[in-house]
């Protein structure tokens, strides 16, 4: 009896095994031919971060192990995972980057790219790559540059000058709120920065994928922005614009000191975050007083205010 069941068992396993081959053969028939892959040229690009020099050739295996799945062999965001991802991975072939310290339309610095790899991009599938050594990360920055010819003949932009941060006062927050209204940030971000402005639902990024504006009220005490978490990082976001997205640069339309006031106001939109700005607002009983402009400009038209809020 045991002998018969052993034979039966072997026979069934044999059939299952054979069936596996049959399924694999059928599956391979359905996979379309892609043809020969075009060659990948690893140009001898370099990066310079502090006193570390990165070399593209040294990052070849790291890129293939950790980055190819999303960013693709040719850095064109066609990695096999990309179809499942939202937001999509960065397409390095265009050399348009969100998180920069340089003006809109210019290349980021090596430090910008180095920081982004290490920081990851919150609310996306880009992990926090703090497991690389500094040298490995610098090599990866150099490797990213092989994918776009822009890196060969165009210099990185000059980092913007960020003046020292003024004190966080209720007047600063009040001016920030006035700027938020005047510059019409609420059109996309909404009057409370919750990403529900009148234009929010129509936004698409530069590859025509739908995209939402940042929701300041979301998240807890540790909520971050994709491009950092400090006041300086917020400053850079709207003074350089997030290239490739609807978020423009306001560098030509805000004075640097006024920009700090806007940063302080934006922090109060992060209602769940313990920040100095929220402390100051709390001390003022949660009420932002109307801004008194010492040099008044002509009043904004009455029908150009956010619905049901703003000043």
């Amino acid at each position, binding site marked *: 009896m045991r002998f018969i069941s052993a034979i039966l068992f072997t026979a069934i396993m044999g059939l299952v095994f054979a069936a596996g081959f049959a399924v694999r053969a059928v599956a391979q028939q359905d996979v379309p031919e892609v043809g020969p892959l075009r060659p990948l040229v690893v140009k001898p690009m370099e990066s310079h971060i502090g006193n570390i020099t990165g070399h593209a050739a040294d990052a070849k295996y790291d890129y293939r192990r950790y980055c190819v799945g999303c960013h693709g062999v040719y850095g064109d965001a066609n990695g096999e995972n990309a179809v499942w991802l939202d937001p999509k991975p960065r397409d390095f072939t265009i050399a348009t980057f969100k998180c920069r310290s340089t003006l809109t339309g210019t290349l980021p610095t090596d430090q910008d790219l180095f920081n982004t790899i290490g920081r990851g991009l919150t609310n996306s599938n880009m992990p926090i790559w703090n497991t690389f050594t500094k040298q490995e990360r610098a090599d990866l920055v150099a490797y990213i540059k092989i994918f776009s010819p822009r890196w060969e003949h165009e210099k990185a932009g000059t980092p913007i000058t960020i003046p020292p941060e003024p004190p966080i006062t209720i007047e600063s927050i009040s001016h920030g709120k006035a700027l938020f209204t005047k510059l019409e940030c609420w059109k996309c971000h909404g009057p409370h920065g919750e990403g529900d402005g009148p*234009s929010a639902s129509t936004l698409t990024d*530069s590859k025509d994928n739908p995209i939402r504006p940042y929701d300041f009220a979301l998240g807890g005490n540790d909520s971050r922005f994709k491009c950092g978490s400090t006041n300086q990082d917020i400053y850079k976001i709207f003074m350089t*614009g997030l290239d490739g997205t*609807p*978020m*423009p*640069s306001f560098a*030509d339309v805000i004075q640097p000191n006024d920009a700090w006031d806007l940063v302080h106001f934006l922090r109060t939109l992060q209602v769940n975050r313990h920040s100095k700005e929220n402390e100051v607002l709390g001390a003022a009983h949660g009420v932002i007083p109307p801004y008194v402009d010492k040099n008044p400009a002509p009043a904004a038209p009455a*029908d150009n205010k956010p619905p049901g809020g703003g000043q």
Partner: protein
Amino acid sequence: MRPKPMLLALLTLLVCPSMMCPSLMFAGTVSGKVTYTGTPAHQKPIDMSKEPSCAKQHATPITTETVVSGPDNALENVVVYVSAGATDEGQVPSQAITYTQKGCQYIPHVLPMHVNQEFDIVNDDQTSHNIHPLPKVNIEWNLSQPPGTAPYHKKYDKAEFIPVKCNIHPWMHGWFVVLKTSHYDISKGAGDFKLPDLPPGKYTITAWHEDYGTQTADVTITGNETKDVNFTFKAKAY
């Protein structure tokens, strides 16, 4: 080039160096009309209720400008240019050109320009716009332009047909057409275009429409003549 025009050209250079004589001794013109056949898709009226300061500038709502037609099946906003045969890229025109945001619309809808020609971007509205051209070859940038702020001065260094949008007002669409030649025109009104000052030679003239595609025509100029070249595009149902 045939020997006779070559000789004439040499004589022209001796007698009249190009810098001293503003007009060439032999320069032809290509002119004509751009029309369409069939029935263009209905241009939809734009709902600007989310932007009252713009809505009130239009007594009746404006329509989309993908296809702008004139009398007798004329097709407007077609950029007609010399795509082959010119001996050089020509001078960058010195006159200033302006792209205006007014009534939440881009005026003109299509702005042709020479490579490296500076153009001004003006916000004539009472609302903020962001000017966000979407090039694939040139460099992408995105700038906020609140009302009352200074014009932006920009230029592009590569030839390209660049769509332009405003992210705040999703119905706004326009084009920058950057060309590597100074021989270009855009069809207006009755669909007319004119390309003057063409030295003798064999040229390829290309007509581009943002929706109906491109068409080409070959033309030869031998002297001072005006050659008539017409383009007819097939209208799309939608």
